[in-house]
């Protein structure tokens, strides 16, 4: 009975957030969002979702803090190096044939993946004609991403992953470390547009050749996953590429037939002609 009440409260809280702040978490995977809000409850020292709701409704300043709980900013550079290796081998050669490139990193979080892609493009000589759209719903993490500053003790891991991904240069070429922080090269950022965009409510904004959306769909329910993949399909040009997370799948998506497997192990797909 208690869980039933909690579910009702959770539902109301999510609705309240939507109505007040226009962040749509209604189609996120329930189990995960419940866990995260439960964590938030203990942090904000409240006993029920209703109390949390009342707080967040009446104190707009609190919402950004709650948003940090609702989104899960986990990312690292060249995460799953084989994914980047496959991009290098299978996707980049085709991207080379386009006069100008647009790439969409949906759910970019704190930007590690965006910089990884930018470095990869720089290494393959494509960055100068590329534009990367990096989008997320959380303005806080976007700010961090745009700053491009990371803890220096994470850099060792990044370097290792970069090497494994088939990097042809040294990662140290792209950052300057000082005061326990590493700042990534500004010239990378010139080709990146950081922007607030919600896969739950917003629409397609540009035609792109490649969409990378990794470990984002896992937080969505089937409906929202379909919506997001539909957006990717609409944004992609003919024969454009889509990369998703290692635990994610298009197998059950309504748009399965719009894509063919390119590198199944690394979850890289290519849009195919709708006939």
């Amino acid at each position: 009975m208690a869980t039933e009440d909690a579910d009702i409260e959770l539902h109301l809280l999510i609705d309240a957030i939507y109505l007040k702040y226009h962040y749509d978490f209604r189609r996120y995977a329930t189990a995960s969002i419940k866990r995260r809000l439960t964590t938030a409850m203990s942090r904000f020292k409240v006993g029920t979702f209703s109390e949390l709701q009342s707080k967040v409704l009446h104190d707009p300043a609190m919402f950004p803090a709650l948003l940090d709980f609702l989104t899960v900013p986990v990312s690292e550079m060249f995460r799953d190096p084989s994914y980047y290796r496959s991009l290098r081998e299978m996707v980049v050669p085709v991207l080379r044939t386009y006069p100008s490139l647009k790439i969409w990193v949906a759910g970019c979080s704190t930007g590690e993946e965006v910089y990884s892609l930018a470095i990869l493009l720089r290494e393959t000589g494509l960055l100068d004609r590329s534009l990367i759209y990096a989008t997320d719903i959380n303005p806080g993490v976007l700010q961090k991403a745009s700053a491009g500053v990371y803890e220096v003790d994470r850099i060792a891991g990044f370097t290792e992953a970069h090497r494994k991904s088939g990097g042809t240069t040294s990662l140290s070429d792209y950052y300057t470390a000082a005061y326990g922080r590493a700042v990534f090269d500004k010239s990378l950022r010139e080709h990146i547009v950081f922007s607030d965009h919600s896969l739950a409510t917003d629409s397609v904004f540009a035609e792109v050749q490649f969409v990378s959306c990794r470990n984002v769909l896992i937080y969505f329910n089937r409906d929202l996953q379909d919506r997001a993949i539909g957006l990717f399909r609409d944004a992609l040009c003919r024969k454009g590429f889509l990369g998703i997370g290692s635990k994610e799948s298009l197998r059950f998506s309504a748009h399965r037939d719009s894509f063919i497997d390119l590198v199944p192990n690394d979850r890289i797909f290519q849009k195919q002609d709708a006939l």
Partner: protein
Amino acid sequence: MSEVSSAVEAEFRGGPRAGAPLPPGPLLGFVVAVAAVAFIALLTYHSLQTRSVAAKRVTHTLQVMDQLETILSLTKDAETGQRGYLLTGEEPYLEPFSDAKVQLPDELHKAYDLVEGDPVQLQRLKNLEQAVKDKLLELDQTIALRQKGETSAALTVVRSDRGKTHMDRIRQLATTMAASERGALTERQDDWQHAEYISSAVTFGGSSLLLLLIGTAAILTSRDYRARRTQVWLRTGQMVFGQRIQGEQRLERLGEHVLTFLGSYLGAKVGALYIAEGAGVFRRFAGYAMAAGSDVLRAGDGLLGQAARDSRPLRVQNVPDNYLPITSALGHGAPREILIAPATADGTVHAMVELGFLRTLHSEDLELLNRISESLGVAIRASKDRTRLEELLEETQRQGEELQTQQEELRVSNEELEVQSRSLKESQAQLESQQAELEQTNSQLEEQAQLLEHQKDELSRSQAVLTERAAELERANQYKSEFLANMSHELRTPLNSSLILAKILADNRAGNLTAEQVKFAQTITAAGNDLLAIINDILDLSKIEAGKVELAPETVTVARILDDLSRTFQPVAQNKSLGFRVELATGAPTQIETDPQRVGQILKNLVSNALKFTEAGEVTVRVFPGTHQTLCFDVKDTGIGISEHQREIIFAAFRQADGSTHRKYGGTGLGLTISRDLARLLGGDISVMSTPGEGSTFTLTLPLVYRANTNAAAVSPLAPAPAIASPPATPRPAPGQTPRSMVEDDADRIQADSRLILIVEDDPSFATILRDLAHELGFQCIIAHTANDALAAVATYRPKAILLDMNLPDYSGLGVLDQLKRNPQMRHIPVHVVSVADYSQEALAMGAVGYAMKPVNRDQLAEALQRLEAKFSPGVRNVLVVEDDERQRESIRQLLQNDDVKITAVRTAADALARLRETTFDCMVMDLNLPDFSGYELLQKMAETDEVSFPPVIVYTGRSLTGDEEQRLRRFSKSIIIKDARSPERLLDEVTLFLHQVESKLPVERQRMLQVARDRDAALEGRRILVVEDDVRNIFALSSLLEPKGAAIEIARNGREALESLTRNPNVDLVLMDIMMPEMDGLTAMREIRKRPDWKKLPIIALTAKAMRDDQEKCLAAGANDYIAKPLDVEKLMSLVRVWMPK
């Protein structure tokens, strides 16, 4: 099922060639038939044999008789000869005798041959021979005697009757023999008849037997054939059924396939499939021509439930009326028979099939159902299992994702924990040092606190003083106002009396004043009046400032206000020899609700000022309606005018344009200040336009209805409401209806395989011309006058080609073209446009094969028709390759070469143009670096030159392009490929796409845009619109939407470029601003634009992909006048552009 298979197994054990050649039945039949034929043949032979023997015997008898006759005859001849000789003695008489004597032995010998084997006759013949011999002997004797001349002796011998005796004996013997033979003959004839009888009997009997056998064989064969057909039918059914249920099919699809198959193969008119859901519940999951009905059944429920429980097929013959009804659009009926069969696998019922028939069922129908029952059961079980498996897989996937989320979350909290523990440690150290510091500072703090306390006291003291001062000031101000009000009153009382007295003096009623004294008195009056006016003004102003003016709004007619003015000022004007006119503009409201006294005051002030500052010319008061429910009063003079820098000053209290003015024209200078304050109180305002030396125009604007709560200070022009009227939806063609055209066409006499052409043209006379030309060139044609008719006609008649006009009464030809190209069945039909309007680029880009601008001559039309014909006659596709490098050119040719593609490869742009002039190409692949001029120039030339066709262009270049270059190329080519390792693949892909039109050529958005773009919109003609957008797709779409409407489009790819572009082209009328852009985003750009005073009013419409209200508010806050969400709704965007485009 298993019995059948075992029977089959038994039959074919040892391979197909082993065993009997025929089944036992037919084999026995054949054996009997052979035996019968042999038997009949034998019998027939036998009877023939008998008949032949009988015939021989008859012949023999007749021969014997004949022979006897001969012998007798010869004997008689011999006797005759003897007698003749005996009588005459002449030798010649002996001839018969001699002949007979010679022949008789032969004849006798022959007779012996004939009677051989018959001892009785033989004996008789011997006797006959003896008798003949005796007779001959006697004859010889007589003749010999006669020869010797012993005639009498001879006669004696004759008389002895010996000869007669012999003769008699011969006769008797011959007769006996003949009689014997005749008896034999009768007997033999009987034999013959008997044989004949036997033969007929055998023939009849044999034929009957054969007929019987043939009949039996026919019956057997027919039965066998039928059985075989049934078997084939069943097997084919099983096989087709097997194919239908093959593969991984979802349950619903499987059901659909099964029912469709059963419906067509068995001729069932209605059917349903129920799946077993466990616990004896059956759920319907597929229906064939089914009306809605119950979805769930239980075992034992109804007929189906019964059949399910018994697990065997059930046939129902007298179907109740409402059971499993067959419905169609025209009515419904009940099936004659119902068949219900279970689908079992391993003895379990997995599903139930229910079928309704309008015919009588046969056993094979049941048999087929029986046979497929198991495979259906297996298929359904497999499908169920598969569905379950899919569900499980999906569940697994979900769990995997869930696990991943948990992992990610765990990482986050881990990281957080780490950060926290680190910061905890840090803060602990800090805390320790801080504690020390704290203790130290504590004492300092205490001191400071005391100091602060002190200061705070002082502060609050001075604050109290300040508050008091403020109150004092306010009071003073009020006192001032009150004082002024009182003071002016106090001033007025004595002034009044001095004025009256001065007037009396000036009148000089007593007549005791000199003329000079009278003049003094008049001067006193005038000065006093001036003073009074000044005092009144001051009083008014102070009242207004003190908020003591009370307004009395009422409805007054405008005419009355003007009359008052006229009456008051006409004489004044005449005095100054000035013209004074009042005008009421047509369409101006006749009534206004306001305070007439105050309005009068304002107008009087304005008019008197005008009169005052005008030396010559005229003063005009004009009343006309303003915008937003207001009424305007223009007071126009031809006076000295006001210079620009003085315009603001004139409304300031206690200030005048300049001192000299004051000196020359007098007055307090408060009039305008008061007027404006009053005007604002009334909810309006006063504005001024003036040219020094030429005159001024003061405009009083008043609301038609005064609202008491209108805040005078906040009065500002009302923002125009963004009225977005959604135009009516695009008309859709009604399929199936093909209205007849006004011009007679060939709709009624279309021949199959004719070269049928559709002419879409709204002008009947031109349509007639086109029709006649088409007929002349051997086409048949149908004519449509509207876009809808055209589409309906295409659907109905499927013409080979279309001649299309652009300006159609319902919607544009581009719309028709678009719909045609989007419909897979119509896409291939070539379309040639003939129109007065120039949409050639759009139309060609959308896939028209040609574009002719009206007016056209006959040759051009003929060429258009020929071009169409060339298109619809199947043939090779033409591809033009423009590439300067020999090897590259060859390799592209190799790449694209196939049977259907004809490749023309040229080296230079000039060659390319020449080829394009000659031939229509389906696609063109071009390099940018060409020896004569650049690829870009080539494209430009192609676009400019009318007689050159413009096929879809693929730019294939080794050069990397700058953003600008790409932008410029995009106008002509949607496909740009940079040469690289993977580019051949892409090139082939793109060329194939263009040649076969796999997909419609344009992005859906743009097609929709073009469809709506009907005619040039007057509001946009000649206007400049800056499109700030970095997405090529949208730029293309927006320019192709706005450019045909006559707007000039500037493009900026980010906010910075937008600012530059605005600086360069200050005459931009409207900005369409994307938000998400590189370098400088739309929000920043808008804020920057609004910072510049001269761009403050520039209309900006934000284009945002975000859907939420606050995102849109952000746009507005940044300076956008309006926003529209992506993907762009063409109608809405056009409305917004129209609304915000400055008039």
